């Protein structure tokens, strides 16, 4: 992500474009979970908030000032007007910006990094529109609400810096009981991922892993004598007959996915594998779901 750092404006535009066709979280009320901690979505229960929830017949003990006279005037009984309980929550994002993410097998496909940033920012847009507070994990950008935060997020995501071949999730600075989203290819060592998730789970942070893979990484369509190199060049592997490796590679990939799924199951997270060849909206929808549903 060093050479072709996308401009902030372009990233913002991409993300807006992706977010635009999706309904705001508010409109998707039936999906809201009752219990948990997410942002300004209604909690499907009465409480403090701005939005009307329901009229309820007055019972003894209700204060007379709470009675909604306009409603009560249309019938013989007294009614109270209840508001929906609303609360904001913090969501922390971690987007892998390592070299391995900067890969696209085809010119027509975005790099994994680009897809990851777009997804993350789109999610942030939707969350912030929903009133949540969004930030990056670690200490660089703590969660805040408001449109300005989107700009800061986009800037932070586009920062070009020296990066390792494979990234490790940043689990520091997480607020207890907040939510987190890790976007990466998770092709590197799985140790840091385990550590980060365990640490997050310890703090009561739940969230989602979004594994982004290139179609070629999923298919391994190689044959013949080949020298494979990692994006940074730190790892190389030579084979005389790449086609023979396909099955074993795919087995290892499946193993990696299974390990991630296992990890998530133990920590209460969710995992999703997204391919850059697919529509980003599907992944975004899944991320909504992952953040909305309480498990």
């Amino acid at each position, binding site marked *: 992500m060093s050479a072709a750092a996308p401009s902030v404006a372009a990233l913002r535009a991409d993300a807006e474009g992706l977010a635009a066709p999706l309904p705001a979280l508010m409109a998707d009320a039936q999906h809201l979970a009752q219990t948990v901690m997410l942002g300004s979505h209604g909690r499907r229960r009465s409480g403090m908030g701005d939005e009307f929830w329901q009229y309820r017949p007055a019972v003894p003990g209700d204060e007379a000032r709470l009675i909604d006279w306009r409603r009560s005037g249309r019938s013989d009984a007294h009614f109270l007007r209840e508001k929906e309980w609303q609360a904001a929550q913090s969501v922390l994002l971690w987007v892998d910006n390592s070299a391995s993410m900067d890969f696209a*097998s085809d010119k027509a496909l975005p790099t994994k990094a680009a897809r990851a940033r777009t997804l993350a920012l789109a999610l942030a847009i939707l969350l912030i529109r929903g009133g949540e507070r969004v930030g990056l994990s670690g200490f660089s950008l703590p969660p805040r609400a408001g449109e300005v935060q989107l700009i800061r997020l986009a800037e932070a995501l586009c920062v070009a810096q020296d990066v390792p071949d494979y990234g490790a999730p940043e689990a520091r600075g997480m607020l207890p009981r907040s939510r987190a989203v890790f976007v990466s290819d998770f092709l590197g060592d799985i140790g840091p991922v385990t550590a980060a998730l365990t640490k997050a789970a310890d703090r009561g942070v739940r969230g989602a892993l979004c594994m982004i893979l290139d179609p*070629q990484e999923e298919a391994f369509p190689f*044959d013949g004598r080949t020298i494979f*190199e990692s994006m940074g060049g730190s790892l190389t592997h030579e*084979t005389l007959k790449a086609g*023979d490796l396909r099955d074993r590679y795919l087995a290892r990939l499946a193993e990696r996915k299974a390990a991630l799924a296992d990890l998530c199951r133990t920590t209460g997270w969710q995992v999703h594998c997204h391919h850059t060849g697919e529509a980003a909206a599907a992944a975004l929808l899944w991320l909504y779901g992952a953040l909305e549903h309480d498990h």
Partner: protein
Amino acid sequence: MFTIGALGFTAPWLLLGLAALPILWLLLRAVPPAPIRRRFPGVALLLGLTDDEHQTDKTPWWLLLLRTLAIAALILGFAGPVLNPQVREPGTGPLLVLFDGTWADARDWQRRIDRAGGALDEAGRDGRPVAVVALTDLPVEGPAFRAADAAAADLPGLTPRPWVPEAAEVATWAQTLDGGFDTIWLSDGLEHPWRADLLSALEDRGAVRVFQSPRPIYALRPAAFEDGAIALTLVRAETGAPAELILTAHGRDPNGVERVLAQMPLAFAPGAETAETALSLPPELRNRVTRFEVEGVRSAGAVSLTDDALKRREVALMAGADNREGLRLLSPTHYLSQALDPVADLIDGSLSDILLANPDVLILADVATLSDASAAAVAEWIEAGGLLVRFAGPRLAASDLSRAEEDPLMPVRLRAGGRTVGGAMSWGEPKSLRAFSDTSPFYGLAIPDDVTVSAQVMAQPDPVLADRTIAALSDGTPLVTRKRVGQGQVVLFHVTANAEWSSLPLSGLFVSMLERLAISTRPSRPEAADLAGTIWTPDAVLDGFGAVQEAGNLPGVAGEDLAEARPGPETPPGLYAGEDRRLAVNVADADTVLTPATWPARVPVEGMTVAQETPLKGAILTATLILLALDVLASLWIAGRLSGPRAGAAAAVLMAALVVAPQAGAQDRDPAVEDFALAATTEVVLGHVVTGDAELDRIAAAGLKGISETLYARTSIEPAAPIAVDLETDELAFFPFLYWPITPDQPRPSDEAYAKLNTYLRTGGMILFDTRDADVAGFGASSPEGRKLQELARPLDIPPLEPVPSDHVLTRTFYLLQDFPGRHQSRDVWVEAAPPDAERVEGMPFRNLNDNVTPVVIGGNDWAAAWAVDDAGNRLFPVGRGYAGERQREIALRFGVNLIMHVLTGNYKSDQVHVPALLDRLGQ
């Protein structure tokens, strides 16, 4: 040149390179394919995986084979392979190319010419002088050796002749040979008596090589009439495999059209020399057959012309009432029937029935009286070419027929009673016949001694009697008299048709006389004696290919020569016409046998095939390239580069390497020209010629617009908006009608434009020339416009003109008009002149004038101005004054309507005026 079979190499040493292929094989095996470096994030998952096998280390065998093949093809290609390399004609010095040139050559004449051409080319390259000789067309001297290209110029002029040269001629010519030369002999494949002698004469001069086609040779013997059917016999030279052929009988159908009248299959049994078939046709059809052909064989030998031998004449016999029933030998017609039955078709019946059958000959034996109606019918039939033969007899002698006046059905007047000589009651000996004079059709016939005449009817002495006598007795009294009537003739035998009055019917002379009179059908081949003293002129002759040609002015042939003629330069095969019959001379006669030529073993005999020399270098190098391209593909596939990130690049390289598809030369279509063509042809469009004078062109366009609107409103012609036509650039063929206003200063069209205009006029276009000066000038050169028109029209293909006659079709194509005014009212409007022989038919209001649309109409009435309307439909120019002016404009418009109608419907209205007459004639 090094050759293997039909394959030769121009650079055979390069083939040694093939020995290096095994080394290449080893080298290729030793080198594994180069690795490909790929960036791949998933490498982290690959770490530690090892390859199962090391096969890809070495190139797979099939790729090796592919590459080895490619290299082998490369070596082969550069070694210059040639398929069927031309063998050089051996030898030096002069070369004689000798054709037999007989009818048997015709079956593959072109291949012979090609073969000879090849030999001449070769000789030309070697600088050998060449002589080309055909034995059927021998030069007076020996062969004249010339440069090969000069001799090659003669080749197309050589044709096979429909005869075989005479041995004597060939021997004479062989003696004129001198000097040394090699010979290429293009033999016709048949054994001829002169063949061996000529061969030895040629071998004395140098090497002889013989070329001979293996195609079978057929000859069709003349058709013979046997047992009521036409027997056809086909002979062939090679008695090998069975063969199936089809014979066709050609002739004219009743409409006079030459067509195939019958077809019959013919099969040669294996080993059989001849094949026979019989064709049974109705007499009417059989008499129409003019020749038989073997279908698909192009040679004079495969054509057999038929002459009168095949035609069976239809002879009607009538006798006076037969009152002596049972005495057959005394029957008046017995001897006639006996003589004619084998050679003619006899018809019996009443006279009216007989005449309906239209026989060739009508024989009345001792019939004295015919009813008036019958006599008239017979006379008519004679006029039309019938031959009436009458025999005398007691009845005729007793009647008053042709006594005082010559009867139309009798050649002479008769004296009463006749005479009897040498009988029991008379003096004198029975008379014998006098030799036939040379004007008699019987001239040349030998008269047997035993023919005597004892009774006859006597002719009245008459000035014409001598001319009409064609046979006489020794004392000079006429025995046979003849009178020509119209196209037919009347012949009277002054004796009976039975042996009562003379012994003539008992003799062979009687049959010969009937033959000479063309009563009976001739034997197929007359003897020389039969034809003595006759001259026969060729009617149609066969060429070597068997096509029937006009005889032209070939000289006549004496009968005795013709009777024994073999086909030759003097008597080419064909149809010869004598006085009253025709005789065919055919290539094959009734005992023609074809023997294949035999050559001594020392003479090389080759087939006629000229194998085309085909250089294979290009093809093999192309194959090499394809193999190498396949190798590229295979290598890429082996290296896994056909898939994966860089496959696109590889495919692009492949495409660039393989696709050599020549760009289909898209036709240069000028869209403007196409639009013009579409605009001019999708609807009827009137055109006006662009004169260069903007105002004039505007008026012309407006005028045509006006007349188009008028047509649209009044007629079924619905023209689109008129189009300005530039003579130089635009296609004229789209326009049925061009309006060409003349200005004194308009440019003269180019020659190309004139060519287009002439084509346009010839193919039915019409141009209306308008000098627009009728108000000030009469028609002619009296105005600048008139002079300009003359100048412009001079190169045009314009027929003679005349002022519009009052019955011209232009006066009635839609409106009935007599004036053709525009803005001016001159009556000088000129159109194509009527043909000078156009006559007004009685009762017709109009002459039947020229059949075409007049290509030009020339006048000066400024019609466009009278027709012109602006966009709103208002008239642009005033015509005349007041009501009369409007009337004039109306007439002008009507003239326009008539004119366009004339252009589009031609002389339809001219035809229509005949309808009442036609209906009248049909009786309705």
